[in-house]
């Protein structure tokens, strides 16, 4: 990889972009699968201490990536409890770390959205004989296109962070090197124009994803009302 814009033709760049997307999109997928039902349940379930849980969840949206990276590293290290899995310094470890980072975003934003919608739906659903978790999941599915915002927020956080993937991935050439760690590397090598160029590519990719998501939402709204 040498200079911008020549790198746009470089295979290596697109391999790195592909890996970045694989890691971040996987993390978003898992975080949503776990976090959305969690957020929905939290939105409708009233229990003692709920306020504390809600506030904590909101605060966890600001988890520092480097701290998450460190904790996951200690867990996955051979000297740590999950060392047997041999996951350290693999893309799998990066997915795990990013999933932890995005999970609070998924759950907290979903909780807010479901709680707002709940007021509209709750009574009607109860009248139809649907309550509790089943009702929450119905509402969750009904507002799915609004939840796209949560998904994009999570994707943004994952593709932008460098602290967690650097520590648990090791920035290994050809194996765990992603866009953000490459930019960090080129910056520390003093190749600022290249680093900046890569940054533009990264932002471009994220913009494209957001644009695609917007089109999907528009189409769906036309179809489902």
């Amino acid at each position, binding site marked *: 990889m040498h200079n911008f814009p020549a790198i746009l033709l470089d295979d290596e760049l697109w391999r790195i972009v592909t890996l970045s997307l694989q890691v971040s999109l996987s993390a978003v997928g898992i975080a949503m699968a776990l976090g959305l039902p969690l957020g929905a349940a939290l939105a409708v379930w009233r229990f003692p201490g709920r306020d504390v849980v809600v506030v904590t969840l909101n605060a966890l949206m600001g988890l520092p990536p480097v701290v998450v990276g460190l904790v996951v590293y200690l867990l996955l290290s051979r000297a740590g409890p999950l060392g047997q899995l041999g996951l350290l310094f693999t893309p799998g470890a990066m997915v795990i770390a990013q999933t932890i980072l995005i999970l609070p975003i998924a759950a907290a934003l979903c909780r807010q959205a479901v709680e707002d919608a709940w007021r509209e739906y709750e009574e*009607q659903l*109860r009248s139809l004989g*649907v309550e509790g978790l089943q009702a929450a999941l119905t509402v969750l599915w009904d507002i799915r296109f609004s939840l796209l915002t949560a998904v994009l927020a999570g994707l943004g956080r994952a593709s932008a962070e460098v602290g967690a993937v650097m520590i648990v991935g090791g920035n290994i050439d050809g194996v765990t090197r992603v866009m953000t760690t490459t930019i960090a590397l080129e910056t520390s090598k003093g190749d600022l124009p290249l680093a900046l160029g890569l940054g533009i590519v990264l932002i471009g990719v994220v913009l494209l994803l957001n644009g695609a998501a917007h089109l999907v939402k528009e189409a769906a709204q036309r179809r*489902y009302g």
Partner: protein
Amino acid sequence: MILPLRLDEVSLTIQGRTVIHPLSLEIAAGPATIILGANGAGKSVLMRLMHGLLSPTSGRVQWRDADPDRVRRMQAMVFQRPVMLRRSALANVQYPLQAAGVAEPERSRVAAAALQEVGLHHLAGRPARAFSGGEQQRLALARAWALHPEVLFLDEPTASLDPTATREIESIIRAFDASGTKIIMATHNLGQARRLGDEVLFIHQGRLVERALVDRFFNQPASAEAAAFIKGELPWV
């Protein structure tokens, strides 16, 4: 059979304010019952107490059947503003059927028949949220009917609709009534009460003030409040 419904000294107090004063009544199968009263009198609250959406502060709401699942299953309610899911009309009618455990192909058949009853069959595949107010309310009725409830509660179903849509809704309600479904409807619309009702429960400031058959109520109201209401002097409490 879950009717008759009995309310035993049922009251509701919310944040210190008594919305329904201790009230006892029995509602039997048969006549279409209108709960009549001014805005804020407590009609909607009373309906929700009967339907089980609210729990009384004191007293008991008792149906004939002791099984709570059957009791729930044999009632349906149509609200002033229906809430539709972001799905097709057909899917919306299928939703409560599915929740009640009705399997295919029965489910689709029943849902399609319900849409047919309310004249929306040609719009079965369209997104329900795109319907007009009148169409959504008809859809709500279809959704309620698909469950074949014994009792159908209606909370001011035409208050938000124009006269044409109102007529359509009223004719559907009449059809339900004719088919044997017990109608319990809250309204402040005198004409509607006369057109659709057989008996009237007149509510005023959270109390049941008068109960009579429709003709007697409108021609010879026994209470002063009912008289004032009929004359149009009590639109708001």
